């Protein structure tokens, strides 16, 4: 597995958003097992039962609230959200993204 580009360019921000997503997965679906289920940041959330469609919508609503960004629902696709790396990269590249205080 190669490191996502976003992780290379800002590892601290990447780590923060990543941890936020892990905590959210634990709080809502996996209760402490999220990190074990995510076998690498490019592991598919859909194919590995980590998150499914309804959960993705809940996650992006959470990310919108947390970072005060608006996520275009047209972007809600496998290409943008189906792994940890894709989710974090999407958030970091969002034009309105600022690290949480």
């Amino acid at each position, binding site marked *: 597995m190669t490191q996502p580009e976003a992780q290379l360019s800002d590892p601290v921000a990447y780590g923060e958003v990543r941890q936020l997503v892990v905590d959210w997965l*634990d709080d809502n679906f996996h*209760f*402490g097992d999220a990190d074990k289920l995510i076998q690498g940041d490019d592991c598919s959330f859909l194919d590995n039962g980590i998150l499914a*469609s309804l959960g993705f919508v809940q996650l992006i609503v959470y990310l919108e609230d947390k970072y005060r960004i608006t996520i275009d629902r047209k972007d809600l696709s496998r290409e943008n959200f189906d792994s940890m790396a894709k989710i974090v990269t999407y958030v970091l590249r969002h034009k309105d993204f600022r690290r949480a205080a």
Partner: protein
Amino acid sequence: MSPPLSPTPIWTPSTDAIERSALTTFTRHLEKVAGRAFPTYAALHQFSIHENRTFWRAFLGWSEVTFEGDVEPVREGDDCETATFFPGLRLNYAENLLKTTSHLRDDAPALLAINESGERTRLTRGELRAQVLGVAQSLRRLGVGPGDRVAALARNQPNAVVAALATASLGATWSSVSPDMGADLVLTRFGQLEPRVLLFHGEFAFQGVRRSTKERNTEVAQSLPTSRTVMFFEELEPDSSPLSAFPRFSFSHPLFVLYSSGTTGPPKSIVHGAGGTLLEHVKEHRLHTNLGPGDRMLFVTSAGWMMWNWLLSALASGVEIVLLDGSPTYPEADSLWRIVEEERITVLGTSAAYLEYCRDAELHPGRRNLEALRTILSTGSVLHDPLYSWVKEHVKDLPLQSISGGTDILGCFVLGNPNLPMYAGESQCLSLGMDVRMLGAEPADVSAGAADRLPIGELVCANPFPSRPVGFLGDPDRIRYHEAYFSQNPGCWTHGDLITITDRGTARIHGRSDGVLNIRGNRVGPAEIYCVLESFSEIGDAMAIEQKAPREVGGSRLVLLVVMRNGAVLDRPLQLRMKKELSMRASAAHVPSVIAQVSALPMTHNRKRSERAARDVLNGRAAANRASLANPECLEEIARHPDLSLQDDN
């Protein structure tokens, strides 16, 4: 009462559609019987209450339900709690669902089943009846007879429908729960049931994930000593010498047992009678939903929710029922709408939570060919006004009927009407034959939105109705039954919901009036949460409350207030352990969104916990019963807790 909300309907039926509706046909029939005209629905509804016996007798005849015996007396007694319907009449529920008539032949479609892989199974009425009669014989050979109980952890598959109808054919009682239910919850239900036969599916699939149920099945089977036969659905094959006829049983003969969990004690095991269930469902399907032969109805439900039983009964009206085994959002976000398009579904039953998901995911179902779809039904939780416009704009301009009732009556108090206009946020009418009222209605918070200015009262039904349950299991003196529905307002069924009935006869449901929670459309009894938490030595006391949360699916979230024992700390690992345990031993709906530590829970002077006070405060209201609390100061702590602030409405 306040003036109605929206002055203009969001949908209006055509004159032609009204002329052709079954409700119009029935109204004309009743006019002949009664010798008077019913120019409005209100007039018809009033008659159905005040001349209740005439109404039900006329409906029984018009509906062509198959029965034998005397139709008189229609009803014995006038008290809602004790009256009985059609004591001289005998029928078989399954026979009525599977019969053929001149316009409903054996080759008519009866059932379509779809799973997440997209596989389809289709059965005609003749094929379904043959399977039911064959499996009924197999069950009989296993010793199942009238009055016995068959329990199932069932997927929403054809073999579950066949087994349920085979059970009913024999006059035995069917009870199913969803296959993802944890062992503890299953045992609190089936332990009361004492089933003779226990049926399982070996695994279940949801959102593409297949899970074995072997371990849980074994635990359940070993803990139910009364089950003489434990088997997989696949092993229950039709006998080569099928049952030759459907024996008929009394109108109130036990048909289904369903469960309802409250704030204390084990879940209520509610026994529903065959005649009441059948007659109520045929009334709701034909008169209120205009269902009939040619309709294909898909209701998104598991085999553990009352809407599954409600869907089954639609066979009696000649409807082809569609079973979806799995998620409506898998494998694609809009999978359900693809099915609606491809299978030309005419009536789709879903929930407010699912429609909210479609809106939030910005799906565009209307871009598909939804030509066949004519009605959407929604139930499970409150369907808020904006969703009506969303459906009209993004799905189709059709009636979106908000229907509401519950497990306790296996039917609806408020629902749709093919002859009336539809107003956003409102159920179109009160159910025929039911004297539904709002009791003690008081104007609510005038500083809030328009909907909150409506008078809101307790939903009660003031007259007897056939689908009132027969009773509870394990309650021979009917003490718990009385306490559950009749102690609060003697002579009236008190349902536990808050309702507004508008001047134009429409209704709005506002959620529960008691401590029962509604999480993403799932009814959750706090008692089941407390039961699981008993295994946590760190937790001294806990209280589960539903808090409004507009950004959450279903519009609310589950908050758990906990008082820690002996200086224990509510840290993150403990919170995750609690959530995991609740998820495994109860269900995903039992998992709180927020767990908050407080120093005390509100208690009344006579040491009763007050969920009501906590609920008021968590939802931004002053506690209505503050004066009756022994420790009102704890409410300030709850109100100020940083994790419990109300979400913004945007």
